[in-house]
C-alpha cells in the first residue's frame, strides 16, 4: 500500500504543479510534495525495518535491503534539492532566464522525474524497470532543455538521442532476458520478467543468451550511468541544465541506472557462473575513472568539472561492484550513498557560486569566502569530501575499495592511484582560487539556501566516522545479495 503512496505522491505532485505550477507558491508546493514523499518513504522504510523485505501487488513491486536505502536516499535528496531550488529558481527568474510557464514545466517535470525513479527502484519487473528508466530520461530531457538556449537545446538533444539509443539496447537485452526466462518459467504472463523469480531460477537460465542480454543491458543502462566511453551526454547535460537538475541527475539518476545494471549483473553472474560480468564492470569502471580524471584536468566550466567528477566516481563504484565480494560491494554501496549526498551538495554551492559571479567559467569565480563565507566553505568542504579527504565518508569507501583492490587485483591499483591523484590535482587547483583570494562581486539578492548543503555534508561526515548499525546491516545484506 505505502509503495503505491510513494509512487502516487510525486505523480499527484506532477499533476498539481502542471495545473498551478505558474503560481507564486509553486516552489513551496514542490518542496511540500517532496516532503510528503519523504514522509511516505520513511513509513515504508520503517515497515521494511519491522518486517524485512516485502513484495506487493502480485509481486510487481518489492523492497529489499538493496533498494530500500536507495529509495530513502532518493526521497531525501529529492526533498533537499527541492528546498535548494526554491531560492535558486527565484534568482534565475529575476534574472529573466526563465518565465513562469517554464517554471511550471520545471516543477511538474521534477515531480514526474522523481516518480519515474521511484518506479524504477521499487518495481520487481525488469520490463517496468525499463519503462521507468525511459520515462526518467524523457522527463529530464525537458528539464535539461529548460533554458531553451542553443547550448541547452544541443545538450538535451544529445542526451535524448544517446540515452534513447542506449535504452533501446537495454530493451533488447530485456527481451533476450524474457526470451531466456520463458523457457524456464513458462509464459504465465507477467511473472517471467519478475526479478525475484528470475533470481530464484537464475541457475537454469541459458548462459549464452544471458551473456548477450547482459551486454545489451550493460551498454543500455551503462549509457545512463555515464560509463566511459558512453558518457558523452553527461557533461553537456549537467552543464547546461538548471543546477537543481544537475544535482539530481548526478546524485540520483546515475545511482538508479547503476542499480539497474547491478540487478542484471546478479542474474547473469548467477546464470553463466563465470566472472565475465564482473570483469566487464571492472573494465568500464577503471576506464571511466581514469578518463574522467584526465578530463577533469582540462575543465573551465564549474558544473562540467563536477559532471566529470561524477563520471570518475561512478567509475570507481562500478569497479568496486566488479570486484565483488562482501567488502567491495559494501564499499560500493557506501560510496553510492556518500557520492550522491556530496555531489548534490557540491552542485548546490556551485550553482550559487556561479550565480554570484554571473558566470559558470571558473576563471570568473574568485574569492567566495570573501563574498559569502557559507558558499565558499561549502564548496571547499564539499570538494575536499568528494576528493576523498577524511573524515568524510567518501574516504571510508575509497579506503575499503583501494585496500581490496590492492589485495585482489594489484595490477589495477596503479590506474586507481593515477585516477585519484590526477582528479585531486585537477579539482583542487580549480576550487582553491575560486574559494580563496580576492573578489569584489556583490552578494546574492536572495539568501542562498545552504541548509541542505550543510545537512548533506554533516551526514557525509557522520558516515565517515560512524555508520549506523541499521544502515550497515542493509549494506551487508545487499552486499551478500549482490554476491
Amino acid at each position, binding site marked *: 500500500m505505502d509503495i503505491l503512496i510513494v509512487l502516487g505522491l510525486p505523480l499527484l505532485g506532477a499533476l498539481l504543479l502542471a495545473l498551478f505550477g505558474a503560481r507564486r507558491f509553486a516552489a513551496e508546493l514542490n518542496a511540500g510534495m517532496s516532503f510528503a514523499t519523504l514522509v511516505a518513504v520513511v513509513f515504508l522504510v520503517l515497515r521494511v525495518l519491522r518486517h524485512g523485505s516485502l513484495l506487493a501487488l502480485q509481486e510487481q513491486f518489492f523492497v529489499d535491503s538493496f533498494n530500500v536505502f536507495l529509495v530513502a536516499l532518493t526521497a531525501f535528496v529529492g526533498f533537499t534539492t527541492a528546498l535548494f531550488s526554491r531560492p535558486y529558481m527565484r534568482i534565475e527568474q529575476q534574472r529573466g532566464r526563465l518565465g513562469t510557464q517554464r517554471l511550471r514545466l520545471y516543477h511538474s517535470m521534477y515531480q514526474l522525474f522523481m516518480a519515474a525513479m521511484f518506479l524504477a527502484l521499487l518495481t520487481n519487473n525488469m520490463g517496468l524497470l525499463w519503462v521507468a528508466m525511459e520515462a526518467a530520461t524523457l522527463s529530464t530531457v525537458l528539464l535539461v532543455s529548460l533554458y531553451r538556449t*542553443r547550448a541547452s537545446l544541443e545538450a538535451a538533444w*544529445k542526451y535524448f538521442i544517446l540515452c534513447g539509443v542506449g535504452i533501446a539496447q537495454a530493451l533488447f537485452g530485456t527481451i533476450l532476458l524474457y526470451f531466456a526466462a520463458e523457457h524456464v518459467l513458462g509464459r504465465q504472463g507477467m511473472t517471467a520478467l519478475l526479478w525475484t523469480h528470475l533470481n530464484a531460477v537464475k541457475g537454469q537460465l541459458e548462459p549464452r543468451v544471458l551473456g548477450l542480454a547482459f551486454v545489451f543491458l550493460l551498454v543500455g543502462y551503462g549509457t545512463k550511468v555515464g560509463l566511459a566511453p558512453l558518457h558523452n551526454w553527461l557533461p553537456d547535460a549537467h552543464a547546461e541544465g538548471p543546477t537543481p537538475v544537475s544535482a539530481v541527475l548526478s546524485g540520483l539518476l546515475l545511482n538508479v541506472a547503476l542499480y539497474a545494471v547491478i540487478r542484471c549483473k546478479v542474474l547473469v553472474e548467477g546464470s553463466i557462473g563465470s566472472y565475465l560480468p564482473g570483469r566487464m564492470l571492472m573494465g568500464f569502471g577503471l576506464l571511466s575513472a581514469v578518463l574522467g580524471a584526465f578530463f577533469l584536468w582540462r575543465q573551465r566550466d564549474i558544473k562540467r568539472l563536477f559532471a566529470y567528477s561524477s563520471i570518475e566516481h561512478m567509475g570507481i563504484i562500478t569497479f568496486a561492484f566488479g570486484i565483488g565480494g562482501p567488502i567491495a560491494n559494501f564499499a560500493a554501496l557506501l560510496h553510492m550513498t556518500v557520492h550522491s549526498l556530496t555531489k548534490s551538495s557540491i552542485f548546490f554551492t556551485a550553482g550559487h557560486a556561479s550565480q554570484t559571479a554571473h558566470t559558470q567559467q571558473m576563471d570568473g569565480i574568485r574569492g567566495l569566502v570573501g563574498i559569502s563565507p557559507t558558499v565558499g566553505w561549502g564548496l571547499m568542504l564539499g570538494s575536499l569530501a568528494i576528493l576523498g579527504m577524511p573524515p568524510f565518508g567518501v574516504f571510508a569507501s575509497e579506503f575499503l575499495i583501494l585496500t581490496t583492490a590492492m589485495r585482489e587485483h594489484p595490477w589495477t591499483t596503479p590506474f586507481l592511484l593515477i585516477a585519484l591523484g590526477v582528479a585531486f590535482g585537477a579539482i583542487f587547483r580549480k576550487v582553491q582560487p575560486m574559494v580563496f583570494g580576492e573578489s569584489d562581486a556583490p552578494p546574492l539578492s536572495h539568501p542562498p539556501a545552504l541548509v541542505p548543503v550543510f545537512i548533506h555534508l554533516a551526514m557525509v561526515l557522520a558516515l565517515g566516522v560512524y555508520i549506523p548499525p541499521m544502515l550497515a546491516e542493509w549494506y551487508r545484506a545487499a552486499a551478500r545479495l549482490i554476491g
Partner: protein
Amino acid sequence: MPHSNHWIVPSLNLLASILLLISFAMLSRRRTQRLITLFAWQGLVLFTSTCLVAYSSGQKEMYYSAGLTLMLKVIALPWILHRLIQRLGAQWDSELLVNIPTTMLVGLVLVIFAFGLAQPISRMATTITRNTIGIALAVIFLAFLMMITRRKAVTQVIGFLAMENGLFFAATSATYGMPMVIELGIALDLLVGFFILGIFFFQIREQFDSLDLSHLEALKEE
C-alpha cells in the same frame, strides 16, 4: 501449437527478409520523404508479421499490440513526420558522413555478425519463428549504422524509430511478444518521446534555423 502452420513459417521468414531489405533500402536513401515512406512500409510489415504470430500462437493480446503498431508506426508517426518536414522544409539529407557503397558494405558485415550472434539463440528457440531473431538484431544494427551516418536531425530520428521497429520485431518473433503492460509502456514512451522530438524540432529550428546536426557541435572539449 494450436494450428498446423505449414504456410506460416515461410511467410514469416519472407516478411523478415523484407524487413531486412527495407532497412538496407533506408540505409541507401537520401531523400527524407523516401525514408519516411520506407519506415511506414516497415511498420506495415511488422504489423502483418505480428498478426501472423498472433494467429499462429493464438494469443489474443498480441492483436492489440499489432493494432498499436498499425496505429503508431504505419499511420500516426509517418503522417506527423510528413507534416513536420513540410513545415520545416527539410526534404533533403544532402551529404552523408560516409558514402553509400561503403555504408552498404559495412551493413553487410554487420548483418553477418548479427546472424552469427543469433545462431545459438535460434537453435534453442522453441517458437515457430526461431531464426527471425537474427534478422531483428540485423535491423537494429543497420538502424544504428544509419543514425551514425546521417547528419540531419529528422533522419536520425527515423533511424531511431527503425531501431524501435527492430526491437519490436525481436519481441514478437522471438518471444511471442512481451507482457501487455510492458508493450503499453513501451508504446507510451515511444509516443511521448516522439512528441518531445516534435517540440525539439521546432525549437532547434528557431534557434539554429536548420535541422542540420552540424550546428549541434558547439559543446565539446575545446
